């Protein structure tokens, strides 16, 4: 088991070096999407439309964010991982068409995501749930 300190944008050869059991510390831009976000992204891509964020080399976080409005900005209350298998039906397309290099979630994913990871050079990682406070304190901006 090795430890890696990585930054976005992630390069394909770096991601391909990772092995099961490695620990990754990630700094950079992480985009969150869960069920509806995935559905919309895949729909937009299938119509040939552009997404508001260029995800190439970035990390995609299956997150359950709780945010509250403070004045004219949003403040994150907690942002924990959500069960990834629900996104299995979309993830192949997301990795292929959006160029996501790292998927962060919990509970693991299915064979289609594994195939996409192998084919296009991406990795699935697990962020243990239940440490919401810790994660919030490390958040730099929204």
């Amino acid at each position, binding site marked *: 088991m090795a430890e890696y300190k990585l930054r976005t944008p992630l390069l394909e050869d770096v991601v391909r070096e990772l092995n099961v059991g490695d620990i990754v510390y990630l700094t950079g831009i992480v985009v969150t999407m869960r069920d509806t976000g995935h559905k919309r992204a895949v729909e937009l891509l299938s119509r040939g439309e552009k997404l508001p964020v260029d995800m190439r080399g970035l990390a995609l976080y299956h997150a*359950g964010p709780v945010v509250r409005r403070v004045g004219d900005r949003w403040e994150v209350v907690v942002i924990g991982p*959500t*069960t990834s*298998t*629900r996104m299995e039906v979309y993830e192949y397309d997301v990795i292929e068409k959006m160029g996501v290099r790292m998927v962060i979630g*919990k*509970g*693991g994913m299915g064979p289609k995501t594994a195939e996409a990871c192998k084919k296009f050079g991406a990795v699935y990682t*697990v962020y*243990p*749930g*239940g440490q919401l406070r810790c994660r919030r304190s490390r958040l730099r901006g929204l």
Partner: protein
Amino acid sequence: MPWIDWELVEGIDYAEVTVLLKGGGSEIVARARNLVPAEGLKGVMKYVIEAVYEAGPRPCPPIIVSVGIGANVSIAMKFAAKGLLRPVGVRHEDPEVARLEETLLQAINGIGYGAHGMGGRVTALDVHVDYAPRHPATLSVAVVMNCWAARRATMRVYADGRIEYITHLHLNKEVV
């Protein structure tokens, strides 16, 4: 609006309110089924162990497993859901049910999923079983799981309006 379940208890003059925050990941693995009565308790145990095995790391192990046995699936599910309110480590008052809980816990931890499916000795923190009387023709079983975070809060509201916090004792000092 959250779903609120009410239960009337004779002889008390307060309302006890418990909030249970449950995640979608641990809920999508919930299941219920009518077994053939001939399958008996062995069938129930098989069903529970299979439910945990097939849930894999999705419900955020180490989990709390709650089992309801009853005369139909809705009653079984109600008992299973209610079982999540019981604190970890508290056994059923009926020694036979308590033994069943311990047997199931041992079997489930034998699966070896460990925290978040990364492998380990503790797949479940506890197993709670409860049952309702049933007709010999039906044997319903329901299994509900909760992630290890298991966030719960209980308070009592007395007839005179006084509030007592049962789980978050520090709040009692702040209440006049």
